[in-house]
């Protein structure tokens, strides 16, 4: 790989031992994947934040690095933590878990990383531009930034994203290159998609089917950004789709070459089968929205549906701190809490220890959450649209 004089200096240890090792990691990954050079990046999003995910080994690594005066060079955000960083005690997160989680957060803070722990950085002030090179980790955020915004990122692991943040560089390979962003399978959708959960179900099915390919969708007439985030998240969870194109909707779709692709058709029957497949429970103990993190539009929509009602089962809405504060200001939080729900910021159901909090059956409208909850959190799942889920809590 070609390295500039300044990059050679980092590799020779002239910028300190920590940078040398982190940069060596980027160079090695670049060699493994055939990068020709390093490219500067506009922003980073780092995964491996929840104590539940990285445990003591990860915690100690981050504390080590952060004790050496290491600072990030570009705007860097974090993936969700394992708990609400402010209301964890009130919401019943275990104390020993909280102690370790806060060690991790403090280590990131010392490195100059912005403590906005969210899988939707693009809704919370970290918004890349079209064709900007970035180094993001969280699979749904990677999918959204590549597909809906047209920024360029590979799916980074925790350490490689951190290395990119501290060096301000990433190796030029994979989805940073235009020729690697071409679709290689066509998905023809022959049914109307109404609810966000429909997009989640479609995403789950397509991810399972195409694995790590780049799908080109036709037949999706319209979708808002909440629905696109739901679609991309599910495809990245059930498969490893990091980029998709939708005819008429996403920015690169018209520019790509979609001639002669194998076509997979999806209709009403396939969609119904997926709803059946994702349902493993009957009555939810808790209904959780916000996977990926809820937008203000999603929060306000749930707010309208529960206003003045008394919930028999709790509703949780997971979101970023920024959306929570907007929701507080609009009075949504108050209305939802009065009904018996909670808005939980900074964390999400997949990375929090909900299996230790007395829940066995979780209701979700997210294809991604339905994919992960049985394994990561030992939950049975009720997968349905928002109206059916709200009804199940009354």
């Amino acid at each position, binding site marked *: 790989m070609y390295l500039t004089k300044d990059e050679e200096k980092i590799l020779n240890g002239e910028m300190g031992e920590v940078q040398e090792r982190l940069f060596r990691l980027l160079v090695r990954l670049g060699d*493994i994947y055939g990068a020709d050079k390093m490219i500067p990046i506009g922003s980073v999003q780092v995964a*491996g934040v929840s104590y539940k995910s990285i*445990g*003591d*080994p990860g915690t*100690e690594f981050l504390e080590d690095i952060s004790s050496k005066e290491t600072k990030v060079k570009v705007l860097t955000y974090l993936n969700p933590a394992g708990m609400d960083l402010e209301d964890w005690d009130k919401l019943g997160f275990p104390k020993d878990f909280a102690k370790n989680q806060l060690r991790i957060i403090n280590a990131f803070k010392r490195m100059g990383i912005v403590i906005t722990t969210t899988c939707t950085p693009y809704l919370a002030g970290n918004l890349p531009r079209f064709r900007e090179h970035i180094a993001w980790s969280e699979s749904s955020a990677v999918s959204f930034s590549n597909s809906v915004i047209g920024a360029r990122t590979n799916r980074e*692991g925790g350490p*490689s994203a951190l290395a990119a943040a501290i060096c301000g560089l990433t190796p030029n390979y994979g989805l940073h290159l235009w020729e690697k962003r071409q679709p290689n399978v066509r998905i023809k959708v022959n049914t109307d998609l109404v609810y966000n959960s429909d997009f989640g179900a479609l995403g789950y099915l397509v991810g399972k089917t195409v694995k790590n390919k780049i799908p080109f969708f036709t037949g999706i007439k319209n979708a808002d950004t909440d629905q696109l985030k739901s679609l991309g998240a599910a495809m990245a969870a059930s498969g490893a789709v990091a980029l998709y194109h939708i005819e008429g909707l996403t920015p690169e779709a018209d520019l790509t070459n979609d001639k002669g692709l194998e076509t997979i058709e999806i209709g009403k029957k396939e969609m119904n089968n997926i709803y059946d497949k994702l349902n493993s429970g009957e009555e939810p103990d808790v209904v959780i929205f916000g996977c990926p993190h809820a937008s203000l539009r999603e929060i306000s929509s749930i707010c309208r549906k529960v206003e003045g009602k008394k919930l028999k089962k709790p509703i949780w809405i997971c979101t970023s701190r920024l959306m929570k504060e907007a929701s507080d200001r609009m009075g949504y939080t108050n209305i939802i809490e009065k009904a018996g729900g909670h808005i939980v910021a900074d964390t999400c159901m997949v990375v929090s220890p909900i299996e230790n909090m007395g829940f066995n059956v979780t209701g979700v409208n997210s294809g991604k959450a339905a994919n992960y909850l049985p394994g990561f959190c030992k939950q049975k799942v009720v997968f349905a649209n928002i109206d059916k889920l709200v009804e199940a809590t009354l």
Partner: protein
Amino acid sequence: MNGRMISPGKCRGNAIVSKEPIGFYGGVDIKTGVIIEKNHPLEGKSIKDKILVFPCGKGSTVGSYVIYGLKKNNVSPLGIINEETETIVATGVILAGIPCIDKIDISKIENGDKILLDSDNGIVEIEGK
């Protein structure tokens, strides 16, 4: 034998060989360096101060942090030799500063062989059986 440098450095030691991939997270005890994965060919064996030889890594990406932790706890292998180093192991050895080389035909190496691992020059030598 000639291979590809993954992480720089030079070391000498006795080989411990696994024909099976190793998953470090949940597979190796970070405090002792003992393999703890059930039914793994090296279960119960320590990798501390050995030249660890295995085809490739497997499992959780947290494995990178475990390799770093082994080094910090002074129970890491002296060096690592792989057929193909994937990103989990590559990330771990580079962060930890453990010499590592890949693209080596590991079937030629047996348990207990005296090995020279010169990663800087991409060389593995069997100095004694």
